[in-house]
């Protein structure tokens, strides 16, 4: 029997955010927006969802006068991502 895919990760934008954060130490909002080609509003909503689940840490700070939001994947996020990929493998017979 197939394991159910984590609905929080099985969505295009959230999965893209998590994939980026998995391969870097940290990324800011502008970088994530550029790489995922998403709108600020949508990206902000999805970041909040991932943060509420404890998958990512979000730090809001300032660089000079500009605000800067920096996101970082958490150990819970890494584990959830690994489980998600394991489930995917089951579906794809890998």
């Amino acid at each position: 029997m197939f394991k159910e895919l984590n609905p929080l990760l099985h969505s295009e934008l959230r999965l893209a955010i998590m994939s980026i954060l998995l391969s870097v130490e940290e990324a800011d909002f502008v970088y994530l927006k550029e790489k995922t080609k998403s709108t600020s509003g949508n990206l902000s909503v999805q970041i909040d969802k991932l943060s509420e689940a404890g998958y990512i840490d979000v730090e809001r700070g300032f660089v000079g006068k500009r605000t800067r939001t920096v996101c970082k994947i958490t150990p819970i996020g890494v584990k959830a991502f690994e489980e998600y990929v394991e489930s995917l493998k089951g579906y794809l017979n890998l």
Partner: protein
Amino acid sequence: MEEKKLSEKESLELIAQMIRNTQQKLERGNGIPFLIWGYTTVAVSVLVWYLFSSTGNPYWNFLWFLIPVIGFPTMMWNIRKQEKGIKTYIDKVISYVWIAFGVAGIVVSTSAMFIWTLPILFIVVLLMSVGTAITGLVIQFKPIIFSGFAGMLLSYLCLLVKGYEVILVFALIFLVMMVIPGHILNWKGRKK
């Protein structure tokens, strides 16, 4: 990108594509830290050599502390200016390597100035050349790897050359070890 459901195959492709997108490429400005520390060290060395050799006054050696005084704020300014939106694991490793070697350099220089007599120019070149070689190996950039190992060998010149001229040798080594490869790294980044 919208919040749409994906097929399993699309999910896997998306993960691979996003990870590929984050792979750090050689970029314009990568060589700037080498240029900041390289040019600062060369300039301060020439200044110390000129003042020390023409007056014989050892107090001019305190001017060596101009290197961190100029280098650190310039580095901070450069980090802010070159904000690229991400910090990779490679960035983290390189910054830790240089924090460790930087602290070692400052501790040993301060000890040499106030406590013991040490072959300080030799030790500083050796420390910085090891840091350079590690950086080159981590970013896999041959001119930096080569200059790091060349610096290790050239450091012995600081033991062999005597008198005021050893300061000029020290400056020359930093020119070869940091300034030249820093320019090559920038040039390669610009070309990409």
